């Protein structure tokens, strides 16, 4: 289990993700990273993932943050995933980042069951990201 969690911060495992210039490429890099697929349906690991993510701090590496969010999504623990996304998107610097902000924003749209933007490169406007962030924060706060 520890090995699996450590993969989320291992540059060797995440090397292709570091080679991404856009959120859709980052997502495909994470989807193609075998070591991360071990998180699938492992809802029991969600709290550990959130704990490690919190420990990374606000100026954490965006690729590592994205890997944690993706792992949470794989576990199927939607409550923890929404809480983690809310936390990332609450930080304006993260929200506005071309890579992580869009990666997290699009993931939030999916988790909230909203219709994703259309087109070859689905992209949320800054207002849309902010709206999704507010909605997530409200939902998490209501629990």
């Amino acid at each position, binding site marked *: 289990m520890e090995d699996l969690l450590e993969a989320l911060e291992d*540059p060797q495992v995440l*090397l292709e993700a*570091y*080679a991404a*210039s*856009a959120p859709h490429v980052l997502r495909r890099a994470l989807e193609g990273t075998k070591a991360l697929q071990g998180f699938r349906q492992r809802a029991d690991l969600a709290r550990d993932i959130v704990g490690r993510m919190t420990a990374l701090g606000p*100026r954490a590496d965006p690729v590592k943050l994205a890997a944690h969010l993706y792992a949470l999504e794989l576990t199927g623990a939607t409550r923890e995933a929404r809480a983690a996304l809310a936390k990332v998107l609450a930080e304006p610097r993260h929200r506005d980042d071309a890579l992580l902000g869009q990666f997290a924003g699009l993931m939030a749209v999916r988790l909230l069951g909203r219709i994703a933007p259309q087109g070859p*490169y689905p992209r949320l406007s800054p207002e849309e990201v902010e709206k999704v962030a507010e909605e997530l924060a409200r939902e998490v706060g209501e629990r």
Partner: protein
Amino acid sequence: MSHRTLLTAAGVVVSHSHPETTWGEFSVAQKMSLQAQTLADYPGIQPVTYVHLNHVEEELLPTRRYNCWGFTFNPRQCWINTPQDVQNILDANGTQVFPPNLRVGDVVCYRNSYGEITHTGRVWSLDPSGQPALVQSKWGQLGEYIHAPLQVPSIYGTNLTYWRCTPLTGKGDGWLKDNTADDRLPCPPGATWLSPDLWCNPSGGTTHQDPVRGQPTGVYARVRNPDTLDITHKTVRFYWADPNGGIPHYEWHEIGTADVTVGPGGEGVAGPVTWVPGPTVPSHACLLAVFDSGDDYHAATTLDPLVWPFDVARDNNVVQKNISVVTVTRNLPPLRLRFTARNPLRVEAPLEVTLRAYPVSRAELEGLRLDLGSLKDLPEPGPSSPPGRPVSARPGLQPQVLPFEVALETKDQRWRTAGTKLTSKEMVAGLGKVAPGNGGKLVLAVAPARGAVPGQMMRLDLIQKVGGTVTGGFTYVLVVGKS
């Protein structure tokens, strides 16, 4: 860091950012670790080295400052945010090109199996059949590498297209022409050592006069500014080097610098810098210039940073003037012209020098902005002048008549040639595979052919290729003098 407004040719804004201000830059240890991991996972790729103008070399390690699109379209200055920006640039500024009609410096665009743009880079070299051999690109937050086109992270996909792209507006672009046909893009067609924008003239003229050892002359450069941003008090650096087809940066000898200011859409002349060629300067020297808008490619004040420093063909801030007008008289021993062939690349590669002879007229020389004052006492032969020595032509071409005999006199046994005399319009001398920085010297003995008359002229180009790519050359204009 720059917060400029970058625009495509269609006036569409290119969104870009500076992630290092959000996340901070990687630590040195992180950079080294990511670099080591990348080089281990992708054996054969070469890290890119940037040579600063003070000759300090820097490996371009992983950084958050710019991505592949930033490298391709606004080199090393920013992170271009989305593939839609790239699509907009290709739509407005690009023309799709297809092998074998590619040029070094063309943009290569990668798409995955979904057709999504994933990555871009620039063609670094072509193979003899015109297919891209190597690509230079920045891998997301990783480093810059030179690699085979498909030796990349699998997420980039295998669908590659090639584009010739004009520069974005708003990034700054001070440039000088490599030759009269230069279109501002990397590696323009034709000899790249005949810049009309670099010249020596002792009396303030705008034509080029060969510098003479021990005599003062003025060195000038013309800087063009097609962008919307001002060029204000930037520097042109002037250099000389031995006549050479691939000059390593450490053999560029600085002559001096001059200030230049050019408004948008204008041209400005930097100079004169007074130069008295010393005893170590060869009688036919290379002249080089660099438009230096700042040597820190990340700095906000650096408009139009150098991308390929000391690389005449690739970088439009860097130019070379390798042309000499030489008068040769019949009653003297043959004139010996020296040329150093050198591999300027970072890899071992086969090196060859092509000697190519052309008849040339005074009108053509005026087009090259050469000072023809030394020819004023010589007659200008007409079409009925007695021919020089006829030489065979390639099938389908008219026989050429050349007024000079050219013999290869080098004692270096490593040169492989089909003979020792230029018996056709072209002759190739090869050295086989040569290590980086190595090469050999060629000595050409030149004498007027029997029947040649004073005033007849011939252009002799020495074109050096390393690994199939032209890395430089020298042009002699030979004039038959009075006996």
